[in-house]
């Protein structure tokens, strides 16, 4: 499977490597995103998410590999790509000392939106950001959520077909986040392809597909459902009413136990897939003399998947 400019996917990435001197920030990343799809990238700090987006925007040159965005090889023709994309950087990057309207007008001008459409597009971005009535407010005086929505507004005013959002909801309250994701879904329904990074697990569930990235490698990728059901490679059990500290300390390393993690007042234990994992765990607890109230199968959350997968990816033995 090779990536070239004729690929129908809006974004196609293959064997992408980025080095900063000795440091490898991206280590052979490959994936595809179809038109209208929302793909979420999740990963710990320093995983390489921002680096990936910057390469796709043509802000950084890849050390190796290829990235096709909107049918154009980014490394060859970054300007061709820029006509088609909108970008929200992780760090807020509008002009703080300009008003809401002045920022919108500035980007409308830079993107050369025809004067006949300018007023309407700026209106649209303003309404979308929920900033109608605050046109004259200095952007520096807006709170985090408003700023992020305005940044999104500025990024989509020129109607890009592809949108890169780097942690668009960090530092935004849950209500505003919800609204933000509604906007993303509206755009996606109109055919806009969205690549978004986040640290919030609940947000990952809003994506059509999710990729887990850790230390420059794409660990796993799939729909939320696929990840929940296949990625763990075992059966997840919920243990209630036990002594959390002891269980967390004693269980790891026991035969059949793949992973143990605290989950609220309960414990999530990942057991080897076998006929009756619950029975083997009961047996194990009894043998170690560990008390508990109840064991029941648990529906894995994406958080379970990611915590587990990052752990697996970081074990030396499983590293290819």
């Amino acid at each position, binding site marked *: 499977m090779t990536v070239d400019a004729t690929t129908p996917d809006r974004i196609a990435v293959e064997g992408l490597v980025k080095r900063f001197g000795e440091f490898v920030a991206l280590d052979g990343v490959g994936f595809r995103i179809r038109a209208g799809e929302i793909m979420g990238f999740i990963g710990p700090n320093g995983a390489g998410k921002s680096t990936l987006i910057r390469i796709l925007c043509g802000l950084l040159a890849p050390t190796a590999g290829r990235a096709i965005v909107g049918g154009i090889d980014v490394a060859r023709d970054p300007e061709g790509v820029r006509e088609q994309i909108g*970008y929200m950087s992780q760090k807020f990057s509008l002009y703080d000392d*300009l008003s809401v309207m002045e920022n919108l007008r500035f980007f409308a001008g830079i993107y050369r939106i025809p004067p006949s459409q300018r007023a309407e597009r700026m209106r649209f971005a303003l309404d979308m950001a929920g900033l109608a009535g605050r046109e004259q407010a200095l952007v520096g005086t807006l709170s985090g959520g408003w700023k992020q929505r305005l940044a999104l507004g500025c990024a989509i005013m020129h109607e890009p077909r592809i949108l890169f959002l780097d942690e668009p909801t960090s530092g935004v309250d849950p209500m505003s986040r919800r609204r933000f994701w509604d906007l993303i879904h509206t755009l996606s329904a109109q055919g806009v392809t969205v690549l978004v990074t986040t640290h919030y697990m609940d947000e990952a569930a809003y994506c059509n597909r999710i990729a887990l990235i850790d230390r420059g490698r794409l660990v796993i990728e799939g729909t939320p459902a696929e990840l929940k059901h296949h990625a763990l490679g075992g059966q997840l059990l919920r243990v209630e009413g036990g002594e959390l500290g002891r269980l967390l300390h004693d269980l790891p390393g026991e035969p059949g136990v793949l992973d143990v993690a605290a989950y609220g007042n309960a414990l999530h234990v990942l057991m080897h897939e076998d006929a009756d994992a619950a029975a083997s765990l009961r047996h194990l607890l009894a043998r170690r003399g560990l008390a508990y109230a109840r064991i029941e199968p648990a529906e894995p959350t994406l958080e379970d998947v990611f915590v587990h997968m990052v752990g697996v990816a970081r074990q030396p033995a499983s590293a290819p």
Partner: protein
Amino acid sequence: MFARIWPLVRKEFQELRRDRYALIRLLVPPILQMLIFGYAATFDVSHVSTALLDRDNSQASRALVARFVDSGRFRITATAHRDRGITDALENDKAVVGLVIHAGFARELAGNGGASMQAVVDGTNSNTALIALGYVGQIANRYASDQAALRADSRQPLLYARLPQVGLQGRALYNPNLDGKWFFVPGVIGTLLLMMIVNLTAFAIVREREVGTLEQIMVTPIRPWEFILGKTIPAFLIGLAEAWLIGIVGVLWFRVPFTGSVWMLLLGTVLFLLGAVALGLLLSTLSRTQQQAFAANFFVLNPLFILSGFAFPIASMPDVLRWIAAVNPVRYYLVVIRATFLKDVGLSVLWPDLAAMAAIGGALLVASILRFHKSLE
């Protein structure tokens, strides 16, 4: 073609308007520095102790000596009868300047060849000496031209001041009162303008890089030349306003006469600002942080100032420095600005300086466009 430049220009002025200290920053320092420079840095000399050796001892030579004394710049402290006498006087600190009028001075002055005299200076006090030397040239030249004017057949006689240690016959300016301020105030306008504008622009791009707004601009389809021009034009307009401000203070406060053409001064200022703005932007593209920009600024501005001819004559510098000075836009601007202030010279005289500034400014602008990559690396 300018569709993307106008929003940038407008944005720069909107930011400036929001910056409540901008006006103070742009108005106070130039006026203050103008006053300080104007008073303190006139490098003025008067009553310089002078040793005289008049070999001609004619009416003409005595008239010339009288001119030196009457100017108030020179005071004859020793009269020599041999070459030795001059050197002795300089060595014994009896005089800073030695004037030698050669035998046949009066005859040569009346004839076609250049009459010659010689000035020797005490190099240990080079600043005073050089300025004194400048006055020697001016007084002698004026004497010669007065003599020429007196004569019916006005074939140009030349009074050639042969100055053995320092050749200061570059561009002596017409300054009838030999007032140091007149000579220096236009120079202050030029150097102040340079400092203000390079300072303003050196941070123009690097600040946006640090704040992060540059990253957002880079992902738009804007072209590097559009971005650089969008940064150039506002700085250029501010520079033009500054030039008027400083110039008006110079004329009104120091009463420097403005004898030349406003249009010539405007043309020179426009070309000079082109270079100053482009230089600042180039420094800005070369810096990653504002701190680096500050350091680069300091590193570049000082040599430009020293090699401008503001205080130290370029003609007397070693070759290497003269070559560097040849690409210094300030140097040409000082010529233009002094010439337009103090004498009414036209394009026919100033075109080489104007052309040099245009070339330097153009080259710097192209360099900063080429240097500006839309990349974070």
